[in-house]
């Protein structure tokens, strides 16, 4: 009998370690032979700790499980949720990037390969660098870190740059509230990220990789380090990747609690051991990145999607999606929702379907009021915008952005003026200080919103002017996009700013 208890941070935060300990103790007391596997999460966070028991060819789910229920679990008298694959939240998904997450033992390379792992890499090893990059271009994959830049084009720039050393830098800074896809895949399927980074190396001629992982993710840091050691010991990483004679190695670097270090140039400065201030572009990191050398900077999900593209073929991936948003997107459903977690689906699902059907509305049972999409720099959407299909261009058309695809749902008790103020406050705390519109603008923004809160509606035009200056004058999207949550809150909920809708528009 195999018993799976997730080691995912969210599962741990809801008691998975205590459940795992109870299972081990109870099995021992009964003299029962079990294999206890700490897997990743299946992504249904409201059911964590979600435990699966595999016995007689059947794998059944139980949850949320408490230590007190463990005897009944082992008696097999506990009510089961059935097979995870049959549960509506799961059955509706298209799992490409997250196909293995929660299914396999994250640290078993054998399990990884039994579920399609490394077949993409084997295929890429037989291709020229140019063909590798072309495959990524054909897939239509766009950066999942926020900007949505075509990954293949970025790789091509690095491929064509001449240098004795090039780098693949994985951006695992995941600072956006409402997002956890990077953490989930690193904890649940770390070899997938490793494989993606190696393929990126093959496509660009880079032989060294770094994963810049935020310090707020201790579980992911530990797991990825272990996975890298295992991959190296088994010849997946090192001087001859899978015996090919091609070399690639990588290491984890831990951040130090600065949101702005998710911005790629700031991240590179931090990796070099400098203050995490933003660099002016050009030069592009692709040409002058880490230590001034050509560098791919990609988000975790961008890189972890590469193996399945090579395993199943670029066209297979590109056949999913909507318009120029090809493939699938792991939507992270968070905040005040009934069913929170990770939902991977082809681009194109309307926002309202995600919030009302998939997420089941609010946890509080009150009406949905607003949804912030794309992290602290993302716009607030109202229910009137719910027919917007999930796609880069479609969200842009609504004055928003997908960002890293986190949805934060608020019920009708949300105070939108307060949320706008928080956006400015966060920008002030996290500004790297290099440019004035962001450093000072955010502080003035907090003050201006306080004036509005005190009843001074005359300050509203001042706020919109300030936002224009921040948008146009900031060096990076921290200052440049903080106006998104602020102005969207003002435009969609003008009554909370003491102004009527007409005045705000």
């Amino acid at each position, binding site marked *: 009998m195999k018993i799976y208890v997730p080691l995912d941070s969210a599962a741990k*935060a809801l008691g998975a370690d205590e459940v795992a300990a109870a299972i081990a103790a109870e099995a021992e007391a009964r003299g029962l032979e079990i294999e206890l596997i700490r897997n990743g999460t299946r992504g249904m966070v409201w059911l964590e700790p979600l435990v699966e028991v595999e016995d007689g060819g059947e794998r059944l789910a139980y949850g949320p499980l408490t230590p007190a229920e463990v005897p009944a679990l082992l008696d097999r008298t506990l009510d089961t949720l059935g097979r995870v694959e049959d549960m509506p939240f799961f059955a509706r998904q298209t799992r490409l990037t997250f196909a293995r997450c929660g299914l396999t033992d994250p640290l078993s390379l054998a399990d990884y390969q039994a579920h399609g792992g490394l077949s993409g890499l084997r295929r890429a090893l037989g291709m020229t660098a140019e063909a590798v990059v072309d495959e990524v271009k054909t897939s239509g994959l766009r950066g999942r870190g926020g900007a949505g830049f075509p990954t293949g084009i970025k790789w091509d720039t690095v491929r064509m740059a001449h240098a004795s050393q090039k780098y693949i830098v994985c951006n695992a800074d995941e600072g956006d509230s409402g997002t*956890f896809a990077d953490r989930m895949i690193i904890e649940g399927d770390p070899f997938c990220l490793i494989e993606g980074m190696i393929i990126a190396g093959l496509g660009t001629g880079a032989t060294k990789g770094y994963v810049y992982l935020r310090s707020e993710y201790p579980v992911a840091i530990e797991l990825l380090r272990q996975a890298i050691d295992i991959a190296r010991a088994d010849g997946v990483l090192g001087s001859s990747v899978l015996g090919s004679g091609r070399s690639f190695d990588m290491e984890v670097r831990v951040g130090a609690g600065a*949101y702005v270090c998710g911005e790629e140039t700031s991240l590179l400065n931090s990796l070099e051991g400098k*203050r995490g201030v933003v660099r002016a572009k050009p030069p592009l990191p692709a040409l002058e990145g880490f230590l001034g050398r050509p560098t791919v900077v990609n988000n975790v999900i961008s890189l972890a999607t590469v193996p399945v593209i090579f395993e199943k073929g670029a066209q297979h991936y590109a056949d999913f999606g909507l318009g120029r948003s090809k493939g699938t997107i792991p939507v992270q459903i968070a905040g005040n929702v009934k069913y*929170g977690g990770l939902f991977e689906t082809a681009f194109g699902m309307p926002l309202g379907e995600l919030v009302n059907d998939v997420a089941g509305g609010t946890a509080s049972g009150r009406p949905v009021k607003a949804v912030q999409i794309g992290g602290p720099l993302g716009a607030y959407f109202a229910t009137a915008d719910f027919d917007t299909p999930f796609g880069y261009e479609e969200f842009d058309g609504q004055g928003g952005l997908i960002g890293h695809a986190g949805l934060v749902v608020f019920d009708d008790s949300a105070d939108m003026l307060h*949320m706008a103020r928080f956006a400015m406050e966060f920008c002030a705390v996290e500004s790297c200080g290099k440019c004035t519109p962001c450093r000072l603008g955010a502080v003035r923004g907090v003050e201006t919103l306080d004036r509005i809160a005190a009843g001074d509606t005359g300050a509203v035009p001042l706020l919109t002017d300030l936002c224009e200056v921040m948008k146009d004058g900031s060096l990076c999207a921290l200052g440049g996009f903080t106006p998104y949550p602020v102005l969207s809150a003002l435009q969609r909920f003008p009554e909370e700013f003491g102004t009527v809708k007409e005045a705000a528009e």
Partner: protein
Amino acid sequence: MPRDIPQPEVDEIQSLIDAQLHLEGPLLPILHALQDAYGIVPVAAVPLIAAALNISRAEVHGVISFYHDFRSLPAGRHVVKICRAEACQAMGGAALADHALARLGVEWHGTTENGAVTLEPVYCLGLCACGPAAMVDGKLLGRVDADRLDRIIGEIEA
């Protein structure tokens, strides 16, 4: 109760620095290693790091002060981090944070007078589907409410 500031030996600091020097961009790994060892980045380390990396002391200091994680004064015996970010706010995180501030009688980053508990804000722990989230001495907690927080603080305060 004043907290003792660790005063490690120069040799010991030096060996922690030296162990990272083979890395490309060793400064953050050095600072993490020192903080892991002593709970702070000791003032005495600054000139040693500057010499080892051939940069100015001001530059070293500039880097240390840029990042929220690095401390020059030790934290309390226990550290409570509460998520202040949006997804947790949507689940009542702001009220939980206010409760913690009042319960401990400190400001953010402050330590209780008996040196037992330091309260830190954190902007997202990646637990946004089970907020409000907190971390107590490295242990992650989801769906935290005021009662549960009081119980936990009660246990570590003693």
